């Protein structure tokens, strides 16, 4: 009976999160509270259980990176890079778009997607105004690039952080397994943008002078802080790359980096904490307790056994279903709760496998499907919603379908390419 009640509470909270009838933080906390009331979760399970409680590695990795971003964004480096790139592109709209796509994808691999688009979108609007290009295609291309670029690393997208923590996969595992296909996918996106936005690339030579007059160096507000931030960010990346060697969790690497940056920047707490999304962190905590309750009552275990017997040693079939189902669902519902729910299931599925590259490919199928699926609709990922808001505020509203008519084909094509990559790398060529 308890299991049924836990399932009802979980599904109810999930529906509330998906439909946004109430704020997702309230929905996740209500779901977590229901698990406590049902007696499935106590303080020990919620706060100290590594398998069924709050995953503090995820929480503190996010917190550390948010603080780092909070300092980094004050340097003006993103504005500098975007204007510099647009000028190097000679003001030719397609070349400018390619530059902005590449910058956004790289930044999203290192920082969270929402922050990246928040920083890139305003300067893109400025560049578009200068060169006389319609801004909507540029904004849409950037958010698509952000969701693709974020797929490349452990820290690029919250679902990857959850997967890393639940799977024990390292930063290097993510880079080695996902970055190659992400490079290909960015190329695919550029080609698709050329086709989808063909009418947006009219070149106005007479307006190039207006672009060239922008002085990107003026955007650099605090050069000493930029230098210090660059050094710390580089050290953090070295820490991520070597975390399995030096035996320090990515969460601690991020916190140490955040602490160093705070000390070096000498900013006030309200400044570097202003960019911490406390609501997102609390949402994650509630989510972990909800999913942990499903594990506690054995629902995840039962599902994993069913999935394991269904898949058997047909790992390619399993990864195929996982990448396409994850892609489809992530376009409709937030990919964070989806991955939080699926991770324990995939962990059981992988541990029941034979340890081959094919059996372990389920993790990459989950990451690729969930991350790339976020491009499908206007509500598929948080970055999409943020860019739509920026566009509307600047007098260029993008409707749900206005986004989806570009996002859906890109999500579909990139997921098919990702599936082909999985097939080739982990099955055909393994």
């Amino acid at each position, binding site marked *: 009976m308890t299991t049924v009640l836990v399932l009802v509470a979980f599904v109810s909270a999930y529906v509330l999160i998906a439909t946004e009838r109430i704020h997702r933080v309230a929905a996740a906390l209500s779901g977590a509270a229901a698990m406590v009331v049902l007696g499935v979760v106590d303080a020990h399970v919620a706060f100290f259980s590594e398998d069924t409680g709050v995953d503090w590695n995820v929480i503190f990795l996010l917190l550390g990176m948010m603080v780092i971003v909070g300092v980094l964004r004050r340097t003006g480096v993103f*504005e500098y890079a975007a204007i510099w790139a647009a000028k190097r592109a000679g003001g030719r709209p397609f070349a400018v778009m390619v530059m902005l796509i590449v910058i956004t994808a790289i930044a999203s691999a290192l920082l969270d997607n929402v922050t990246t688009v928040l920083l890139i979108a*305003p*300067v893109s609007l*400025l560049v578009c*105004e200068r060169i006389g290009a319609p801004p909507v295609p540029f904004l849409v291309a950037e958010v698509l690039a952000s969701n693709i670029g974020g797929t490349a690393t452990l820290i690029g997208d919250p679902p990857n952080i959850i997967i890393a923590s639940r799977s024990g996969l390292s930063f290097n595992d993510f880079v080695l397994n996902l970055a190659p296909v992400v490079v290909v996918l960015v190329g695919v996106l550029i080609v698709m943008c050329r086709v989808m936005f063909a009418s947006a690339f009219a070149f106005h030579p007479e307006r190039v002078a207006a672009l060239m007059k*922008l*002085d990107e160096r003026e*955007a650099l*507000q605090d050069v000493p802080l930029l230098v210090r931030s660059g050094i710390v960010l580089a050290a953090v990346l070295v820490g991520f790359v070597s975390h399995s060697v030096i035996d320090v969790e990515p969460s601690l690497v991020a916190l140490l980096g955040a602490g160093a940056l705070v000390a070096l920047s000498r900013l006030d707490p309200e400044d570097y904490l202003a960019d911490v999304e406390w609501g997102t962190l609390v949402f994650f905590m509630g989510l972990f307790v909800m999913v942990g309750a499903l594990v506690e009552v054995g629902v995840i275990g039962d599902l994993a056994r069913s999935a394991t017997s269904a898949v058997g040693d047909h790992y390619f079939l399993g990864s195929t279903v996982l990448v396409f189902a994850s892609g489809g669902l992530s376009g409709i519902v937030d990919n964070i709760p989806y991955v939080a729910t699926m991770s324990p299931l995939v962990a059981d599925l992988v541990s029941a496998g034979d340890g081959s590259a094919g059996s372990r490919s389920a993790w990459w199928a989950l990451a690729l499907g969930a991350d790339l699926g976020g491009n499908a609709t206007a509500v598929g990922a948080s970055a999409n919603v943020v860019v739509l808001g920026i566009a509307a505020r600047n*007098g260029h509203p993008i409707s749900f379908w206005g986004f989806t008519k570009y996002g859906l084909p890109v999500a579909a094509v990139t997921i098919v390419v990702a599936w082909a990559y999985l097939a080739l790398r982990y099955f055909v060529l393994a």
Partner: protein
Amino acid sequence: MRAGDLAEPFPVVTLGTEAVTAARTIGDHRVPGLIVCEDDGSPHTVLGGSQVLRFLIPQYVQDDPALARVYDEDSSDQLLAALSTRTVRDLLPRRQDRHELPVVDSDATLLEIAASMARLHSPLVAVVDDGRVVGAVTVSRLFEHLFPDVSGTTS
């Protein structure tokens, strides 16, 4: 002391007044805003100087102030030129975003005036008598009477 006693003659524009003229009036009279009246002389709203600036400065520059530094002087002039084809009607927020009208009757007390300014974040209130604007009270004029200089140190 009542609003009617404090009210000073104040520049008034209509919805059809050219935006450049409105901006110039704010500058020439060194006032924080203007009273916008209907054609029949009844008050429509108050146009604050910051609303003119919000219209002039692109939203993306307001979102990311670092971008304001990358413009050269010519580009800044081009931004200001955006006012040339506009009227006061274009500068006002959309009707659904507008707040209550900062207007008080001529017999309103100092505290009523202060409450209206505080509630509506307005640097001035229009003073009306029988539905007609008779002047306005600015926040500096109000403070002059709320905190009189008893030491005589005002230059």
